[in-house]
């Protein structure tokens, strides 16, 4: 017979949901997706399709890190089983696959979902919040996801695009005043967030080119570059996804157009560049471009997190090039392990969310700065450092101290961050509680 306290717990967990119930429907044992030996997690990402180059490495990287943890005792003895579904970066497919993860695979929580439109479709059509299903470490910077009232079970990984744009603005205003400055931006919430950030920071552009997501190609990039060149843009900010950045850099290079490129963090990925342009040396196109990152550079083997993640990648994903996508995936996985541990020895969806709220800001991570998550916010990281890409496609810090800048998604100023990055847990295996 289950205890009265257990009964109350079950009832409370069910009470927040909005579905039909029948007499035998209330589970009498463990939380969905949690058994005595396993915690089942799920994610939908573009494993195929136009966004797959680069992004298809994120979820397998998470899985590789989970396997590393599993080989080292798991989470309180339970192995993590990550179920990966291909959403092809199409919102309806994200809805379909997320329903599969919840209804068929019976996952405990979602992790590392990728793409703003996809996750918005999932939150509105699958209604994960009203069903109390956690979605941890979203790989998108859409500022709207920080709204705890609307997305009470979703938690961000990336800093917001608004904050990134504000931080980029401060650098541009300080270093390129008087130069003709132009912007490539996606014509959706990604771009809207960026434009909001630039506007808030008081940065205006001489030419702004917008593209509709899914239309980026060498053909469309030709029109962008023609406009930038025609406007005599000296500084061009590519606040775009990797495939669009690649198309723009490829076309510009072929045309001999060489402005000072400034790259948003989303699109500055050498892996995608090489695949998209079908050129193994295409990372050289990044050479000299200014970029920002909230993580160490994937090629920086002096970084203790990068070093550990590279070792994990070599062992558990043999043959996979370690890049920013792998780094992002493994970082999200390491954060997830800490969240699961913080949720207790017998985690529930409710305890996982509570753990994120109360302890998420203390989790160790490769990112510079802490997660901004709390009971009142679902925001992810908040700090960026500036660098310049070299011929190898590595982002080299502009200053030896790797100054990290931070700001909010509102009207707050851009300041130097004071928080120090937490040290890597021994052997990269979290032991928090």
């Amino acid at each position, binding site marked *: 017979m289950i205890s009265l306290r257990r009964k109350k717990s079950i009832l409370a967990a069910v009470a927040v949901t909005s579905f039909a119930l029948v007499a035998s429907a209330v589970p009498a044992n463990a939380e969905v997706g949690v058994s005595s030996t396993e915690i089942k997690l799920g994610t939908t990402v573009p494993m195929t*399709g136009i966004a797959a180059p680069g992004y298809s490495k994120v979820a397998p990287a998470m899985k590789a890190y989970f396997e590393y943890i599993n080989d080292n005792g798991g989470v309180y003895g339970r192995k993590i089983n990550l179920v990966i579904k291909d959403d*092809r970066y*199409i919102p309806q497919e994200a809805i379909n696959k997320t329903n599969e993860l*919840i*209804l068929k695979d019976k996952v405990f929580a979602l992790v590392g979902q990728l793409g703003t439109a996809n996750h918005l479709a999932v939150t*509105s059509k699958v209604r994960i919040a*009203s069903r109390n299903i956690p979605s941890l470490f979203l790989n998108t910077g859409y500022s709207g996801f920080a709204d705890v009232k609307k997305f009470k079970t979703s938690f961000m990984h990336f800093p917001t695009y608004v904050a990134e744009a504000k931080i980029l603005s401060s650098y541009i205003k300080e270093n390129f005043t008087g130069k003709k400055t132009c912007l490539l931006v996606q*014509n959706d919430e990604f771009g809207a967030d960026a434009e909001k950030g630039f506007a808030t920071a008081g940065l205006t552009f001489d030419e702004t080119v917008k*593209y509709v997501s899914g*239309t980026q190609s060498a053909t469309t990039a030709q029109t962008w570059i023609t406009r930038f060149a025609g406007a005599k843009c000296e500084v061009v900010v590519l606040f775009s996804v990797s495939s669009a950045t690649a198309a723009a850099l490829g076309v510009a290079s072929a045309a001999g157009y060489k402005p000072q490129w400034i790259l948003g963090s989303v699109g500055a990925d050498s892996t995608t560049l090489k695949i998209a342009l079908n050129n193994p040396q295409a990372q050289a196109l990044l050479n000299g471009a200014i970029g920002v990152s909230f993580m160490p550079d994937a090629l920086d083997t002096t970084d203790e997190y990068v070093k550990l993640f590279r070792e994990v990648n070599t062992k558990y994903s043999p043959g996979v090039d370690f890049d920013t996508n792998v780094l992002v995936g493994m970082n999200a996985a390491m954060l997830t392990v800490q969240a699961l541990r913080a949720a207790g020895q017998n985690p529930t969806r409710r305890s996982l969310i509570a753990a994120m709220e109360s302890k998420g800001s203390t989790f160790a991570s490769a990112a510079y700065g802490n997660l901004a998550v709390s009971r009142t916010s679902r925001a992810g990281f908040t700090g960026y450092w500036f660098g310049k890409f070299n011929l190898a496609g590595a982002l080299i810090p502009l200053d030896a101290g790797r100054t990290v800048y931070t700001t909010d998604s509102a009207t707050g100023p851009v300041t130097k961050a004071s928080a120090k990055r937490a040290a890597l847990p021994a052997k990269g295996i979290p032991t928090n509680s």
Partner: protein
Amino acid sequence: MSLKKRVFAVASALAITTTALVAVPTTASANPVCTNKVIFTECVGATTDGAGYVIQVPARFSGTLFLFSHGYRYPINIPASIPLVGGYTVVNTPQPAPGQNAAQITEVATQMLTKGYGIAGSGFARQGWNADSGVKTNIELIGIIKKQFPTVKNVVAWGESLGAFITQALSENNSSLISAAGNLCPAAGSVEASLKMAGDALWGLKSFFDPTIQAGNYKSVLEVYTDIGKVLTVLGSLQAAFAANPVTPAWPATSKVPDAVKAIPSRSALVLVAAMSGVPTQSSSYDGATGPGPQGTLIATQFAAGLSPAFGALENMGGAAILAIMATYDIEQQVGGAVFDNTATNYATQLGDGLFEYSSALSGLDAARGLLGFLAASPRAKADPAAVTKMRALVSHKGVFNVPTVSLAATADNVTPAGHAQWLAERAAEKYLASASNKNSKLAATPRSNFIALWQRTPDSYTKFSATGSPISQSTVNGTGHCRTTTAQYMAIADILAKAAVEGKLVADGAFRSAIRKGGGLTYDRGFSVPLMKFYQN
């Protein structure tokens, strides 16, 4: 199947299953006329309001009889000159079993009788939105049934669409008369939920594509006919434009939007109308996830995310819009004035995250904002307050479940979207919550509910393309269309309801799950959820 064809099919089906219908009295009869058909006894008659009915009870009767309430039938004749729906004549033919056409109604009725279930159904005295009178008719009919067939131990009420609305109302207010209830492809809550979707969609079509569409406040049947014609003309123009140039289809000649708006593909305006009103963008032929050729290519992705929602909206909009015109006229006639009012509606708010979810289909954020800006400045419809008051006095639901109740909804139903059933599910959850929060309640310690929601979910991908990449029209995909339930699904629900009626409770036991499996294409998962109707989101 169109509603017109469906009504015709119903009439012809009943000619097969109940040949005695020709003798159905049109005035109240104290005693029905009964005929022994060897394997079943059939009784026909009319209730005091003149509604014809038919009752069929098999020789090997289980004691459980199913009272069916049919869905919405147009309340007015439609001249043959009107495309698609023209030639319709109002029929009050009783329908004792559900089905999409003559063959299926016969099949369902036959299988019900073979299983030992009795069946009955009224044709109702008036067509159109008839929930108030429909409930009264059913109450009287149940009395006739029990008097004529004393062996009836349990009456299960079930119905489709408007018939489900009648069933739920009967269940809430007269639960002592029935033992279980089935709400199939239901309208639920209040008539306003349906009229809100209808009104928003019609007003959107009017604003973007033909400002001469009246979209409510009808003073005559002629105005209704004219509006149907105009809406069909708009949809026909869009269909031709989509076929000619699916990426940047032209706007209908009747559109008066400024050139700046016309620079946006007309398909995006149609997607906006669907998304803001709640008409699904997944349809019988378009899944929103598949494109021509190998999946994952640029062209396949662009079709799936950018074009498919528009094609789906177009396929869904015809049925939704025509019913919208008819239902709006119908209710206006009943309450004496215009009932649709969007003077306070913020369509950007109502669209919500659809603005980003459909970013590609809306041709980007700037285009979407341009379309929304145009709508914001477009003339609004204002209701007659007295008429609205009368409309709100029509029977509505409280969302209580006094007898075991099962709902069935298709996730891409274009006439009564699954958000209706979700409203019922959420009321059931609230009731449970209220019980669970009471520490001293025995109900809290042994939680139970009288409600189960079943869903017909669309497959992950089902759009088909020809060798040249053209989409192929389909009409039988699970989870799409209005009340496209298979016979196996009907029978699964009938078996679940019959067991619940006998036992007085719904239990998701082995028999329940076995029935679900046999039904095929049914999802039972208490974790499944769909968006509410826009009316309930506001």
